[in-house]
């Protein structure tokens, strides 16, 4: 019964003295698209990393009805800033093919089928013309799109995206949101950290307002209120909006 893609309870994380998460709780229903919204330093990135087990947080995280560690093959993640060596000898297409690793395995041949799959993922983010370019020879926004393509290549059912629209132009933002809505239509669940409050209602159907703990969570229409935003960001935001 508990096939809910992601169910997070009481997530608490400390970095030394800094309490980054303080009992954050949220549920993400199947085929929903949720924006995680909150001020800088609210713990949004920490929330995603803790869910993935990349940070040792306390609390309970269940994915698809079981421990998240058992569901990693069904989860894709695009970090806010990939901590990679930009001078690495790797072409764009090879980066995307890394997303196919669970399918190709250690020794499996990367045949036409995988090449085509990787090219299709690049095309979905509008990067097909850059397939043979070195990863370091791309702009920041283009690099971000390649990492999104790598996540798409995984064929996951749950996507965790940390600021997928940071540093991309308006046309690309529209293309990416189309890709995400397409994933949702195929039954995938999408969770994205998002900073642009003006587009939350247009892009997403659910919101998680986070500031170390859950301020509010639910459908955009119910949750995305001035009152809740004021509690997440403090009253100064409302002054700026007026």
């Amino acid at each position, binding site marked *: 019964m508990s096939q809910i893609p992601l169910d997070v309870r009481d997530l608490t994380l400390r970095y030394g003295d800094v309490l980054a998460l303080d009992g954050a709780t949220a549920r993400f229903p199947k085929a929903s698209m949720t924006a995680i919204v909150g001020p800088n330093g609210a713990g949004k990135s920490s929330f995603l990393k803790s869910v993935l087990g990349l940070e040792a947080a306390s609390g309970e995280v269940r994915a698809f009805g079981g421990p998240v560690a058992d569901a990693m093959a069904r989860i894709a993640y695009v970090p806010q800033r*990939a901590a990679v060596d930009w001078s690495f000898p790797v072409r764009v297409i090879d980066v995307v093919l890394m997303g196919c690793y669970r399918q190709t395995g250690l020794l499996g041949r990367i045949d036409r089928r995988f090449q085509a799959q990787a090219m299709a993922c690049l095309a979905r983010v509008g990067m097909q013309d850059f397939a043979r370019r070195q990863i370091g020879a791309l702009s920041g926004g283009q690099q971000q799109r390649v990492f999104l393509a790598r996540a798409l290549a995984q064929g996951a059912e749950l996507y965790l995206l940390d600021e997928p629209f940071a540093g991309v132009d308006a046309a690309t933002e529209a293309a990416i949101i189309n890709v995400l809505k397409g994933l949702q239509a195929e039954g995938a669940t999408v969770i994205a950290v998002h900073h642009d409050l003006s587009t939350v209602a247009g892009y997403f159907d659910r919101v998680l307002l986070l500031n170390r703990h859950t301020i509010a969570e639910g459908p955009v229409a119910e949750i995305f209120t001035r009152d809740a935003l004021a509690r997440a960001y403090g009253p100064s935001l409302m002054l700026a909006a007026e």
Partner: protein
Amino acid sequence: MIIDALLLQAGYNAALVSLGAALLGAAAGAAGAFLTLRRRALMSDAMAHATLPGIGLAFLAMVALGGDGRFLPGLMLGAGLTAAAGLWAVQRLSRQLAEDAATGAVLASFYGAGIVILTLIQGLGVGRPAGLETVLLGSTAGMLRADALVIGFGGAAVVAALWALRRPLAMVAFDPIHARLMGINPRQMDALLMALVLAVVLVGLNVTGLILIVALLVTPAVTARLWATTVSGTAGLSAALGAACGYGGAAISAAVPDLPTGPVIVLLAAGAFALTLVIRGHADG
């Protein structure tokens, strides 16, 4: 005479040694490519220098057991044990020190201990220590057929293992967090890579010697890096360069009396690197 050696005309044994050195060079080149991509080149230097006390101790142990102390697999076992201890020490010290400082400290102290032990051995007058110092700079002159086979098969095994692991090794080096999410254990991959580098170091003891093996691990790799655009291309080209240097170095040093093998191999590798810098420097404007 050098031409004869290069064309495998200098006798069956010399030919076998040259081919063994070529396989060692290929293994060092391929392992070095992954090592430098993972930014662990210096650690291999510490590991190589940490073999020296093990070689001395293994010599003493074999003499105590009644041998002449020159049995190569025994020396390699001792070398492997102290090299692993050195690697462990680097990892342990890195918790308190910066990794480069930890590497330097381990390199110097293990190497110093090794020199002390070798000096004591020379003074003891037991076993047959003459020529034990060839492990420092390598010498393929008068190498036994069995040794050449160990070197050749060891090198081939390392190349095969690296080929099988090329994908996870590349993924861990490029983006360890993503690799982890894809079900790869980065610590396990690092340990496997270090084990393969250790195998190269041990197999290379008699060829380049322990002081210069790091050059054979690093120089072909950085040279290949300037030409190749993919990980497979880098590793493949680095292996080919390493093989050519190993082959040429062993052949030349076998033909010229008293010329140690290691420095010749390293000079060939450095020559290829210098040539690359000249050519690529122009290409990049």
